[in-house]
Each structure stands twice: as C-alpha cells, then as structure tokens.
C-alpha cells in the first residue's frame, strides 16, 4: 500500500470517528429538543442560539465533576467497564459503507474504512462485546442494584441478539453475501432490501431497539426499580461514557439498518444524478442521502421513546423468545421457499 493510500485511510478513520462522536453529542441535544417538542415544551434554549451549545456545556460539566470510585469496588474493572462500552460502540463504524467510491483524478477512494467480507458478523461480534462493558461495570460496582441491572442488561442483549441474528439470515439468503459494501451496492437505485424483507426489517429494528437499550427496552436503566441500573455507582465522565456509548450505538445501529434494509447510500435516480454532477459530487450526494436516512432512524428512535411505555421484564423476555425468534425462523422458512420456487 502506498503512503498516500495509508494517509487517506487514516484520514477517513479520523473523519468517521469524529462524525460519530459529533453525531452522538448532538443526539443528546436532539433527544432533549425532540422530547420537548413531543411534550409541547421548548427544551434547552439557554446555551447559545436555540441551546446549540448545550452538548458542549454538558460535556464540560461531565469532565469537571468529581470522580468517585467506591471503596469496595474493583477499581481496575470499574474503569474498564465504561471504556469497553465506548470502545465497542466506536469500532462498529469501521465496516459501514458511507458512500460509493470517490474518483479524484486516477485515484479511487472508497468511503468505507474496510470492506471485510464478513462485515455483518463483525458488527454482531462488536455489538455482543458491548455487553461486557455493561456487565463488567455492574459487577465491579460492588452494588447489588448495579449487578441486578447489569444482569438484566446482559440477558436482554443476549436474548435479542439471537432474534437479531436470525432476522438477518433471511436477508443474507436474499443478498448472498456477508459484506456490507456488497449489500449496499446490490441495492442500487430503489432495489432496497426492505421491499423484499419487510418482516425481517421489523424484527431487526425491534432487536436494534433492545440492543441499544432504548425505550421501550431500556430496562437496564430502570431508575424506579434499580436505582439507576448498571451505572448506579458511576459519576462524572465514566457515567458520561456509558450514556455516550448508548448514543453512538444508536447512530451505528441506525447506519446498519439503513445499509442493510433501506438502501444505504442508494436513492432512486442516482445514476442520472451521478452522470450529471460528476464522479466526486455524485457519491457525496449519496453519502448525504445515507446520513439523511440515519438521522431519520435516530429521530424514529426518539419518536418511539415518547410513544411506547417501558416493557415489564417478563414481557420483554416473552417478546424476545416467544414472538421474535419464532417469527424470525418463520421468515427464514418463507424466504427459503420463495427463493427456491422463484429460481
């Protein structure tokens, strides 16, 4: 690999990293604003125009607050927990295709950090590692409420990972590949997978809600039942990392949903647009479309949060094991039958 290529790759990594941090940062602001709008309120409006600097102020506050590590906590693991949570949240972005290849002169720049041929498996692996962050944090706190919260979070994540994995298998039967770049490229124009796999998408989305610990599946953070859940003992930026990881996860899972089911950077009439605006602007428009889809999904996450009340824990498990998994298996069977008879 040439030095220039390495530099480009490195730049891309930095850019994507920064974008996911900024998006996560402003997701907190958007969350509060959108929550306010849904409740006929105004929301944060003191810091900067329309409260635009609120995330900066919040971040500053998080960093300045006193850092407390409980005396009986395992201090090493106590620090590892949130670090792991945010690390696993961040590295998921590596395989997501952010756009088509940019062609500048004779250089072809792929807008994807790495197009590994097991992209989906990588995402699943990384997401399941995120459970460790929660589990270690809850365990190291040496607090029974934290531990209960962590166990709940872990069992919820693991349960929903099963139906998530099963829901994706039907999609893989349609696309015949595990590479996210390939899957995104296959949905050229308007051939979006959601048209072929609506049930699969629904299952995947429900599981994504559970995996990111968002309402209605935000049981790990039941303040009424478990004080605060797995992060009861956490303060300052260590708590901030946990909360931040949730927002990055939301961003990444929105990106994954958009890539797998909603066509990624593809949009109807993209060939016509690309032919008219050239090989640099065209892919960038695709990237903009991709981000629009991601933001729509993030908005949907927040929209649902103010609509559906939290599940009870046994209802959550019932839904995961008795509804989603059989549905996913049925979806696989139906997809298999359709593929067999159409080909």
């Amino acid at each position, binding site marked *: 690999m040439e030095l220039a290529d390495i530099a480009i790759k490195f730049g891309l990594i930095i850019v994507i990293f920064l974008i996911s941090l900024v998006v996560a940062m402003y997701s907190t602001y958007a969350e509060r604003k*959108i929550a306010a*709008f*849904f409740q*006929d*309120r105004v929301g944060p409006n003191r810091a900067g125009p329309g409260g635009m600097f609120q995330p900066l102020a919040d971040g500053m506050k998080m960093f300045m607050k006193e850092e407390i590590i409980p005396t009986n906590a395992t201090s090493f693991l106590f620090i590892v927990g949130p670090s792991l949570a945010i690390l696993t949240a961040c590295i998921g972005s590596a395989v997501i295709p952010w756009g088509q290849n940019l062609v500048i002169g004779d250089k072809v720049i792929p807008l994807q950090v790495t197009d590994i041929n097991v992209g989906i498996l990588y995402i699943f692996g990384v997401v399941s590692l995120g459970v460790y962050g929660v589990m270690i944090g809850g365990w190291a706190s040496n607090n029974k409420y934290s531990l209960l919260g962590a166990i709940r979070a872990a069992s919820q994540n693991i349960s929903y990972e099963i139906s998530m994995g099963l829901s994706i298998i039907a999609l893989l039967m349609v696309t015949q590949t595990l590479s996210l770049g390939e899957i995104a490229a296959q949905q050229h124009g308007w051939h979006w997978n959601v048209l072929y796999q609506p049930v699969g998408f629904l299952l995947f989305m429900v599981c994504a809600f559970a995996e990111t610990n968002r309402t209605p599946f935000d049981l790990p953070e039941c303040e009424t039942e478990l004080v605060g859940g797995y992060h009861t003992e956490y303060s300052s930026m260590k708590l901030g990392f946990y909360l931040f990881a949730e927002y990055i996860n939301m961003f990444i899972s929105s990106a994954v949903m958009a890539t797998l089911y909603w066509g990624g950077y593809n949009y109807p009439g993209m060939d016509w647009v690309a032919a008219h605006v050239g090989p640099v602007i065209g892919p960038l428009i695709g990237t903009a479309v991709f981000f629009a889809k991601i933001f729509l999904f993030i908005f949907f996450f927040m*929209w*649902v949060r103010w*609509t559906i009340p939290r599940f009870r824990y046994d209802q959550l498990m019932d839904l995961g094991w008795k509804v989603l998994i059989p549905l996913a298996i049925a979806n696989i069977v139906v997809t298999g039958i359709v593929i067999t008879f159409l080909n």
Partner: protein
Amino acid sequence: MESLSNKKKQLTVKPLNFWERAYLPAIMSGLAITMKHFFKKPVTIAYPDEKREFSENYRGMHSLKRDENGAERCTACGLCALSCPAEAITMQAAERQKGEEHLYREEKYAAVYEINMLRCIFCGLCEEACPKEAIYLDGDIIPSDYLRKDFIYGKDKLVEAPLNQ
C-alpha cells in the same frame, strides 16, 4: 341482588383480536398521536423571561390601602383577624394623636399589623370582612425566604406606598 340505584352495569373484557394482539397497529396509532404533538406550539412560559398574567380575581399578597388623601384606611377593628380561619392576622390598636389626621383616617388605627404569611391560606375572607375597604389581596406572590420570622409581614411591607412621594 337488586342494586339500589339500578345503575349497575355488567362489564366484560373481550378477548383481544389478532390485530390487537399483534400490538403494531396500536404502536402506529400511538406514533401518530405523538407526531401530532411534535408540531404543536409549546405551551411553556419561559418564566424569568416572560411572566404569566394573573387572573382578575387572583389573590396574592395583602396590601393595606390608603384613602384619597393618603391616610391609612384601617381602623384596627379586628374583623379581619376575627374572620381569618388560619388566625394569621394580629394587630394592636392605638389612638390617633393631634396632628396625625393626615396619617390615619379615623380616631383609631393599627399601630402594629402583622400577617403571618406561613399561616395565611389566601382565602380572601379578611378582604370580605373589612368594613373600611382597607385590605385587599391584590399583590404578587409572596417571595421565598430563609427564616420563619421573615414571613411575618408587618406594616412596613403591607401598607401601600404613600400617594405623593
């Protein structure tokens, strides 16, 4: 048994049909409802910046009124204290001396007039009881304070500002 009012109704819980059990249509309609709220105007009153107007008959802090010449109307008859269900009002009467005619309207006046704002329930009965139209609850909200003794409002806080000063 025959019910007394004949208004008794037998309620039955119908089993949910398939779409109700599927839960998704209910979620859809819920999302529609929240979406409607998204485009509504906020009902917030951003308090320090804008204040909400009180209604016409809002009962706030008491004020002891002066007459058209600037003399205090209160004659310390004690009817307000008598009518007060919370026993928040206490007063001491005094006789008007020569040369004080511009200060007090009648021969008797309240030398000390205190309302304990922690006891007051803002019922407005003092206002109604007053034969001299001397007390009205037309003020603002009672401001917060740290000490209990600071909530006992004397004449310094209650009496209206003099007319031409």
